[in-house]
């Protein structure tokens, strides 16, 4: 039996197939596997960011800082490798640890100071971009043979296509994300916190530490996206990835994850990012449409998916006796002393 919670993901997959099919009919070059592997490579950093974002959104939060984090990690990497002469592998580890640490700090502020994630990560958005400016203002090449080697790794496929290192790294991170979400206690706790935070607390889920770990994980994934972006371009630029947070959120939502939390699939974010990528590719293949169509098309898609999810939620709520907003346990009333 088909579980109704797979519906949004299946719908996303169908839209993807339809768009791809349209491209195959309309444009000759589209039939090569190259187009598909390009999608994987070109959207790798976005997909990785969206995977981290999935955890945040499934938990009912939001992370606006990811785009700045990508830029910051890139600039930091460049500084460590070319500025300090640290081997890229160690530099990447340092950069990833830094990103995770910053994510964790935001998580601590969100969990323990009880400030809305929107505002905290907004401050993060400004802060990380600012830190990137502090390290370096220019776009600088990251000169190291390892990066060149990595970007040259290529598993050719029939039809001009090929899996690049970046695509493979992305697929690995995606797989890890899927496994963490579905096969670890932490992952299930994320779903529980997003599904109903009060119940989760009563069931014994350590809500606060889970929140901290979620934002640390998002920091780690956007950091990894930053490393991937650095390999992808072989350079670092403090203005890179402006607005990627919105793309990532859109990818997650198009992939069938509810922004209210609790419902969604990490794999959906992958499909959501691919759909955005394929719309862009179609527009480039057409070559006469202006780029704003990308924005309008993505907006329309977002609307469509949100309305569809609304319908599904409405449908399932009918069978649930649980109030959409369960009232809190009435607190003990104070008795007047005078």
């Amino acid at each position: 039996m088909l579980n109704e919670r797979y519906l949004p993901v299946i719908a996303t997959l169908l839209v993807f197939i339809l768009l791809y099919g349209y491209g195959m009919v309309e444009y000759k070059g589209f039939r090569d596997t190259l187009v598909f592997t390009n999608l994987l490579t070109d959207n790798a950093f976005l997909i990785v960011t969206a995977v981290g974002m999935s955890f945040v959104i499934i938990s009912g939060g939001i992370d606006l800082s990811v785009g700045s984090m990508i830029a910051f990690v890139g600039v930091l990497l460049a500084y460590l490798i070319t500025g300090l002469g640290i081997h890229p592998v160690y530099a990447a580890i340092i950069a990833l640890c830094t990103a995770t640490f910053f994510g964790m700090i935001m998580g601590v502020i969100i969990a323990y100071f009880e400030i809305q994630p929107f505002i905290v990560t907004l401050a993060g958005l400004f802060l990380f971009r600012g830190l990137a400016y502090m390290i370096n203002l220019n776009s600088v090449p990251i000169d190291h043979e390892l990066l060149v080697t990595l970007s040259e790794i290529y598993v050719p496929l029939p039809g001009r296509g090929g899996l690049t290192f970046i695509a493979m790294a992305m697929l690995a991170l995606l797989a890890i994300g899927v496994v963490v979400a579905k096969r670890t206690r932490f992952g299930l706790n994320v779903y529980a916190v997003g599904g109903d935070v009060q119940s989760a607390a009563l069931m014994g889920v350590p809500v606060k530490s889970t929140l901290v770990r979620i934002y640390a994980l998002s920091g780690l994934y956007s950091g990894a996206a930053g490393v991937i972006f650095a390999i992808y371009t072989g350079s670092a630029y403090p203005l890179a990835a402006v607005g990627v947070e919105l793309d990532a959120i859109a990818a997650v939502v198009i992939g069938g994850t509810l922004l209210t939390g609790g419902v969604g699939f990490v794999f959906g974010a992958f499909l959501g990012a691919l759909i955005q990528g394929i719309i862009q590719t179609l527009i480039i293949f057409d070559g006469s449409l202006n780029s704003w169509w990308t924005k309008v098309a993505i907006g329309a898609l977002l609307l469509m998916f949100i309305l569809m999810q609304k319908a599904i939620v409405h449908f399932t709520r009918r069978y649930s006796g649980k109030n959409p907003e369960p009232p809190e346990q009435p607190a003990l009333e104070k008795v007047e002393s005078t």
Partner: protein
Amino acid sequence: MKLSKTFTSMLPALVASTAVLLSSPTFAETYGFSQIGSESGWRTSETNSIKAEAEARGIDLKFSDAQQRQENQIKAVRSFIAQGVDGILLAPVVETGWDQVLREAQRAEIPVVLIDRGVDADPSLYLTKVASDFTEEGALAASWLAAETNGVCDIVELQGTVGSSAAIDRKTGFDSVISNFPNMNIIRSQSGDFTRAGGKEVMESFLKAEGGGSNICALFAHNDDMALGAIQAIKEAQLQPAEDILVLSIDAVPDIFRAMADGEANATIELNPHLGGPAFDAIAAHERGEEVDKWIKANGPLYLPDTAEAEYQARR
């Protein structure tokens, strides 16, 4: 029944149209053009010029607007390669990070022409660069200013977007010249993000910070849009632009000529937007097997108010 009948009758037409679709690219040369975006007036005139040039030559130009994002440009170039275009025009948003995608284009034997700025990559990876030299532009501006003020001038500078190559190089070029003049100093320098609003806001703060602007001898703006914003700020501060404060900028968009004609700006250096012709010529030459220079310089001249009215009429 009826439906299937209709379908069968349509089938030959479908096949035929598909065949046409498949073969259509062979009729004309197809080039791809990855543009940075449409963030300034100059950028738009460049886009329009290249589109018009392509149309005049009967080239099927695939245009892609990257909205100031490098990743979008890389995607566009890759899509062009997948599409099998005959040549690619690339206006890179930043200088670094192109090696990989250029190598892919080279493997696919598609010539890439860089438009209006260079990249930090092995020159063998691209056919040529059709661009002016930002550093030279900065230097030219500084030289004019030095001559105009006899080497004595307190300058305020409106930088482009922090980190952009145009901003960095124009500043470098400008600085390299004025460093030879001990009495020329940049007293204030801030980023106006290449936008009119940014230019206006930053200029306002300069004027405030420098005692209402009486200390300022000249304004050097990294593009015309910021200068146009700054001119408004100067006017609103009850100063006469071009007289109380010299206004010098780069790009030569129509509106700055209007301002010069109105006596509100002193000089602009043309950043030539008509790069399509040389770029297409270079690709054609390459196809004929000719050697092409690695840098086709397209530096524009410095324009002064005397020709402004005529230029404005010609360009609008």
